[in-house]
């Protein structure tokens, strides 16, 4: 599948944003971090910036961005529509939580409840993003039971890495936050490894024989394509650059989202601020780079079943 940069930026930036807001809300409601208004403003503000810029960039690949509001209408049937509705609705508890944390200076009682709702909404939004891909039977690498856990996990990981760095910047060295980062790192490592193994071994959903209905005659292969130049379907679904470099890119991914951050987090999270702040910041940046490569691979590695009509031997 052709990796559109706007969609990659959207899913990774908004994933990090929802992950960060999720943890801010959770730790805020459970008194896991001090109720410092500045910390709340910067944390929730950064999260809001990430999800808003992600959402705006997702409209950049549309043919008619001015009609994007129409996407709120089909929540009964379309996961893309549900994602739009949930993403927008999340701003309500986000604003209320920010109000409680920064202005009312209280995250108790009803504000704790709102923060819990906010955390829930973040989870649901990322879940619906993953479902857009997981429900496409035409792309076996996405129609995989690890697609949604992958999206949730990488959102949590990138959110946690930035949450950790931010907490260090504000001088809060809470071992619970570092622990969340470590758990998210191992979880993402485990899920991605399992995902890659799964897509490398699972058979495609269809064959050239079933795609043409000519299986009774024997093996089917393309003799002549419809045109000598590539059409929309071939350009959009027939992307194959990444498959050539799969192993190299997966290694880059492993180093940036897992190995570098786990070493830095382990070594610096309880060190002096002059070491802890740059250490956790670099870990967060490394995670973000790794997640972008991961997302690029998620698109570029995925094969679309329609390519069987253009000479693909497997789907």
């Amino acid at each position, binding site marked *: 599948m052709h990796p559109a940069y706007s969609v990659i930026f959207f899913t990774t930036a908004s994933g990090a944003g929802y992950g960060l807001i999720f943890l801010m809300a959770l730790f805020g409601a459970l008194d896991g971090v001090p109720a410092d208004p500045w910390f709340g403003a910067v944390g929730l503000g950064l999260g809001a910036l990430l999800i808003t810029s992600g959402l705006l960039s997702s409209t950049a690949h549309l*043919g008619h961005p001015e009609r994007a509001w129409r996407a709120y*209408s089909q929540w009964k049937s379309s*996961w*893309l529509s549900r994602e739009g509705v949930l993403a927008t609705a999340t701003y309500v508890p986000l604003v209320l939580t920010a109000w409680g944390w920064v202005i009312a200076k209280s995250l108790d009682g009803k504000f704790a409840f709102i923060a819990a709702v906010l955390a829930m909404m973040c989870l649901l939004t990322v879940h619906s993003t993953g479902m857009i891909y997981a429900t496409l*039977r035409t792309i076996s690498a996405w129609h995989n039971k690890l697609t949604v856990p992958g999206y949730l996990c990488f959102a949590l990981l990138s959110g946690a890495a930035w949450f950790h760095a931010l907490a260090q910047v504000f001088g809060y060295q809470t071992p619970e936050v570092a622990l969340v980062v470590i758990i998210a790192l191992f979880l993402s490592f485990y899920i991605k490894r399992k995902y890659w193994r799964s897509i490398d071994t699972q058979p495609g959903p269809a064959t050239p024989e079933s795609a043409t209905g000519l299986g009774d*005659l*024997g093996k089917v292969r393309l003799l002549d394509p419809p045109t000598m130049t590539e059409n929309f*379907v071939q350009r959009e679904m027939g992307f194959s650059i990444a498959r050539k470099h799969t192993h190299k890119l997966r290694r880059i991914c492993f180093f940036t989202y897992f190995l570098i951050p786990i070493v830095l987090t382990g070594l610096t999270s309880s060190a002096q601020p002059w070491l802890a702040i740059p250490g956790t910041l670099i870990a967060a940046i490394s995670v973000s780079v790794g997640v972008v490569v991961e997302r690029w691979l998620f698109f570029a590695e995925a094969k679309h079943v329609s390519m069987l009509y253009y000479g693909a031997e497997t789907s």
Partner: protein
Amino acid sequence: MTLLPPRVQPGNAQLGLVIDLDTCVGCHACAVNCKEWNTGGHSAPLPDHDPYGADPNGVWFNRIHTFEAGEGTASRTVHFPRSCLHCEDAACVSVCPTGASYKREEDGIVLVNEDACIGCKLCSWACPYGAREYDTDAGVMKKCTLCIDRIYNENLAEEDRVPACVSTCPASARHFGDLNDPDSEVSQLVSERGGKELMPELGYKPVNRYLPPRAAKKEQGPSGVGASLPPLADLAPDGDSRFLRWVDRVLSR
């Protein structure tokens, strides 16, 4: 709502195409006439960039692929026209976030409302048959309309109220009709010839059917001569001519 219409009822039509892969000669006339009609029809205009240049590209609703099936002397060259199959469980419809993609309850035709399409392309990802093509000029998705502007068009003579591809096929390899009516001509063809559903394992229940090539004949006509002739080089020289036998002997040395 891009919810699919409820299960097809016996009275509701499921209009579609039945394509005979035995008689299709791969001339691409159906694709050309499709482009010709539809660039002035319901989804007009269809982009047509650099048509005579090095990289011609644009939207086509119908494309002809040529496959080879089987091995050795038993293999067949099969021309394979491919267009929207107007699926019963059309995933392109249910993924649409705006309701622009829809399936008509009365005749099963899958259409795009171009005024509501935001051009997100998700429907093209959901289609296993590669039937939807994005119009970069208009910023909306386009697809086969089953010539909705012909089949109900009272300004056309009744015999012309069929999709453009069907009307133009010189080999009569394309048939149009109601596949939900077991007595229709197309349904009869499907049951007689064992019409195939494409990629049934994906579960989208395509309406269009493909008639497989007929089995190769073992014997030809009433004379009973073999369907494939022995290679000419192995034939004995003409027994009636002593001269030719002499030539053959000389040349065979």
